[in-house]
């Protein structure tokens, strides 16, 4: 707990500064104060928690799940076959420079306002980092350990399950922790661009009503949920990787 104290103090100071500036400006449609946002969060609790949060979370969860399956699958394929690696790796790295937000409207043309246009945006934002990070984890396998296993008569399959997978586990957790906020951002952006429900959509609607605190309330909610999710993954990671020295 002591370790986190400086960060906690800094966050508090920033919030106070924000509160001060907002009170000076005194125009909630330009800069709402943190307390105003909290109040709005409470006032809007029913639509936020019952309608829009579940909508965004299902997009995030479905997108993340597909990304993990695809990303890990691709990492395994690249690790198993150098030809696949040489073909895919550069393409994956290059594709990360594509501004997903700019092409997202296209998905709405394809899939309409259904959940899938938003899921596709989250997948595009999270799938590549997951694939690359997990693949790098496989590559970190020590050659000497692999050779030792071979002297015990291990098959390729044994080497994968008993050596490569455990070696890549820390990278897998890093990938998930990185992908959670990305997928939340992806879902919110997609909803902002075109949707009928979801926190991104709600935030945009408040914008048209010049309700500054209403714009911020769903955004705050999103960050809190993302932080919670990352926290849960961190706990699971700690339970799974207790053998690590630095823990």
């Amino acid at each position, binding site marked *: 707990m002591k370790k986190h104290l400086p960060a906690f103090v800094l966050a508090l100071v920033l919030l106070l500064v924000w509160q001060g500036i907002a009170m000076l400006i005194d125009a909630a449609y330009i800069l709402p104060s943190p307390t105003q946002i909290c109040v709005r969060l409470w006032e809007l609790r029913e639509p936020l928690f019952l309608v829009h949060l579940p909508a965004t979370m299902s997009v995030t969860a479905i997108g993340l799940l597909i990304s993990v399956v695809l990303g890990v699958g691709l990492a395994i394929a690249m690790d198993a076959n150098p030809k696949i690696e040489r073909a895919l790796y550069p393409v994956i790295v290059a594709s990360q420079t594509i501004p997903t937000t700019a092409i997202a409207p296209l998905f709405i043309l394809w899939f309409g306002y259904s959940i899938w246009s938003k899921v596709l945006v989250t997948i595009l934002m999270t799938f590549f980092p997951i694939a690359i990070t997990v693949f790098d984890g496989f590559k970190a396998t*020590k050659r*000497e*350990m692999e*050779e*030792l*296993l*071979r*002297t*015990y*008569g*291990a098959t390729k399959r*044994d080497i994968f399950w*008993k*050596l490569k997978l*455990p070696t890549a*586990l820390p990278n897998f957790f890093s990938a998930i922790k990185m992908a959670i906020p990305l997928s939340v951002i992806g879902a919110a952006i997609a909803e902002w661009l075109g949707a009928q429900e979801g926190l991104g959509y709600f935030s945009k609607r408040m914008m048209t009503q010049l309700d500054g605190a209403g714009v911020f309330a769903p955004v705050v909610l999103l960050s809190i949920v993302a932080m919670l999710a990352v926290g849960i993954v961190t706990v699971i990671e700690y339970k799974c*990787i*207790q*053998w*690590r*020295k630095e823990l």
Partner: protein
Amino acid sequence: MLEFRDVSFRYPEDAQSMMEHLNFQVEDGDFVSIIGASGCGKSTVFRLINGLEQMQGGQIFVDGKPIQTLQQYSAFMPQKDLLFPWRTIAQNICLPMELAHIPKAEQAKRCTEVLEQVGLSQYRDKYPKDLSGGMKQRVAFARTLLAGADLLLLDEPFSALDYLTRVDMQEWLLHQWEHYHKTILFITHDVEEAIFLSKRILVIQDRPFRDMEDVRVPLAYPRNREDLKRADIVELKENLIEKLRRSVNV
């Protein structure tokens, strides 16, 4: 037990052969060391025996049969312990048995026995990070023992340890060897270690090498460290060191 017959080998990347028409034999239950300057090809001899490299000529026999027809005929222990950090000590020791699909109950039984024998019973459920360098090498040795082979290939297993631990481990290893009746082929660049441990010492001097000088150590088992001070042993040691130094200059 082990026989090299006319074995020739060259790494594809290298211009020069590593060994040409190499012949040597190791008898059942012997403790034989291979010494030579660093980079002369000691580890390569092991890589050929355990099948990580394919020889270009000749044949290696274990118990009279070509190694290509055999499985689990040798157990390799490298210089680094290479324990898997995510496995407990017991799980690490069971790894070769797991790969050989030995039933779980049998694995547990053998693991308990060997942990007892190497004196690490209380570390069974600990992780490698909780052990000292010497203890990790003992675990690695226990894992090698349970790989189900009578021929153990130990590649400089103690060279990363500090001097006092190394001396301890040498005595410990002889004790284990006498207990398990295994055949041990032991690589080291430490002449004194080779003399203290082995019945015979094979010396690699040239590159490429065709044969290895075969030196018998005139000491009986169990060994006593005091014997290393005997005049003939000191002379043997000087002799071997001189040979290695000459081969380095080649």
